[in-house]
């Protein structure tokens, strides 16, 4: 029995620019139909990783396969299966929305009647109907991004690679974009690889890969990564924070601890939230103590930002 090749399989994939390392050695296997988020600070190597997987950059080391096809030698076959959204919008202001999509459909290899059919469907799906005849330069950033999404999805790609698709957008446009992507996944089992700085957007992902300075520093399902931080996270601010942390450590309540500008973020083991509150009442100099569920933001800070000493 043979299994279909995964959507993405990268082994030691890396890239240097003029000798400077942008991406170290990415090992990544993404199964078909999954939603995977790449997170990390600016300069972490997210865009480089995505461009390498999209066959638009050549690797300095390692290799990658998309649906079993080699990114270095089978670029054309891979591109037929890809939909791409770059960090900067790729919309020609001199053309109307519809003309932009006609252009993109032909670039994707569609021809004849399939072009108009795909463009009409994409315009309807993205809610671009009232703006179809409008010059793209008159669109707001949110609508331009919707044109990008419509462009990337209209030829029914098997893999969508989206580099910060919602950056700088208002909540309404962000929600609309994710609704389109969800629909795309639901109807066509499309694999989606995306990067974002809005960590809340990565919560529904099947998997999150966290990059920092070109290396993978965390990789797993959001729930797993959050669990590694502790059952709940206590935000402890004030001059007495270190004393409280020491007391919590002594009671073996601490799963993870991280110093912040104003105090500590402490991951607590199961059942230790209430005792922590009670302990805090006996320690002076606690300006604030808040206990809340762990988030991907906690994971992000603990793995990507250097410790404050």
């Amino acid at each position, binding site marked *: 029995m043979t299994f279909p090749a995964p959507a993405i399989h990268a082994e030691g994939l890396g890239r240097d620019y003029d000798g400077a390392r942008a991406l170290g050695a990415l090992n990544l296997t993404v199964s078909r139909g999954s939603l995977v988020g790449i997170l990390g600070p600016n300069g972490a190597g997210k865009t480089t990783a995505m461009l390498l997987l999209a066959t638009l950059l050549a690797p300095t080391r390692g290799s990658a396969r998309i649906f079993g096809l080699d990114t270095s030698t089978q670029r054309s076959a891979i591109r037929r299966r890809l939909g791409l959204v770059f960090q900067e919008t790729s919309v020609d202001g*001199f053309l109307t929305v519809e003309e932009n999509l006609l252009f993109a459909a032909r670039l994707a*290899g569609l021809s004849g009647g399939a072009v108009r059919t795909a463009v009409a469907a994409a315009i309807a799906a993205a809610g671009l109907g009232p703006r179809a005849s409008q010059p793209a330069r008159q669109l707001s950033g949110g609508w331009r991004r919707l044109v990008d999404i419509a462009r990337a999805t209209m030829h029914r790609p098997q893999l969508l690679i989206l580099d910060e698709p919602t950056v700088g957008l208002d909540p309404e446009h962000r929600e609309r974009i994710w609704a389109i992507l969800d629909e795309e996944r639901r109807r066509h089992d499309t694999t989606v690889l995306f990067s974002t700085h809005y960590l809340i957007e990565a919560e529904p992902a099947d998997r999150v890969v966290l990059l920092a300075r070109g290396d993978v520093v965390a990789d797993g399902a959001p729930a797993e990564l959050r669990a590694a931080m502790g059952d709940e996270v206590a935000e402890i601010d004030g001059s007495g924070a270190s004393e409280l942390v020491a007391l919590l450590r002594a009671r073996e309540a601490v799963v993870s601890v991280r110093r912040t500008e104003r105090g500590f973020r402490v991951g607590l083991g199961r059942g230790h939230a209430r005792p922590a509150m009670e302990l805090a009442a006996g320690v002076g100099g606690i300006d604030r103590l808040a206990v809340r569920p762990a988030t991907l933001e906690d994971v992000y800070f603990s793995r990507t930002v250097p410790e404050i000493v």
Partner: protein
Amino acid sequence: MSALATIHGIVARDLTRASRQTGRLLGGLVRPFMWLLLVGTGYNAIARIEGGVSYQAYVLPGIIVMAALFGGMLTAIATVYDREFGMLRLMLASPAGIPAVLTGRAAAASVVAVLQGGIVLACAPFVMPVSPAAAAAAAGALVLAAIMSATLGLLVAAPLRSVENFAGVINVVLFPLLFVSGALYPTSGMPPALRLVAHANPVTYAVDLLRHALGQPTEFAAGLDVEVLLGATVVAFALAALLFDPEQRLAGKISPRA
């Protein structure tokens, strides 16, 4: 099929853009007509051309080539804007690959070049008698000159990464190509070294071919002109394809397990 669709898409997009930049299209016609009417009229009084033709008539083939050269090259060089503003990456991500992208761009730039050169050619009867056969031959020569100009433009644009270099390119590439081509004055009067450069300049052969078509004295055989224009087009296209996206060349050279 994918390549044809890509070429279709790029030509349609580039021509739509060009049609909405009428100022640029009209501006491209000012330069040749300024030479023909203002400089040409002035030089008529002082220039003595072999065969007794007026300077305006002599310079007409060169002005047709000038219109095509600037129209084709500038449209093709505008690729650098697409590179800077992200549209080129979209095109390079096309499954059809770089040859189809370059063919589309060259085809669109050639249409602009033929249009601009054709408008000057259409005005030729106001300067010199032109038979229908000569006009048809000149149109054929113009098409060859336009394709060569567009492809040269792509070659110039290939290594450019920023629009800041764009103005410099016009002065460093376009004007020398035109001035050392026999378009505005005969190459026979040039110093030997410059004449050598003129003979290496493909624009010289475009001007010479137009002179053949319009029945003027020429320097080379028409067959040689056609061969040089086709050869320059092929070489420029191949070099542009090689230089356009260094990542594509690099990709094939990476060892899969390096």
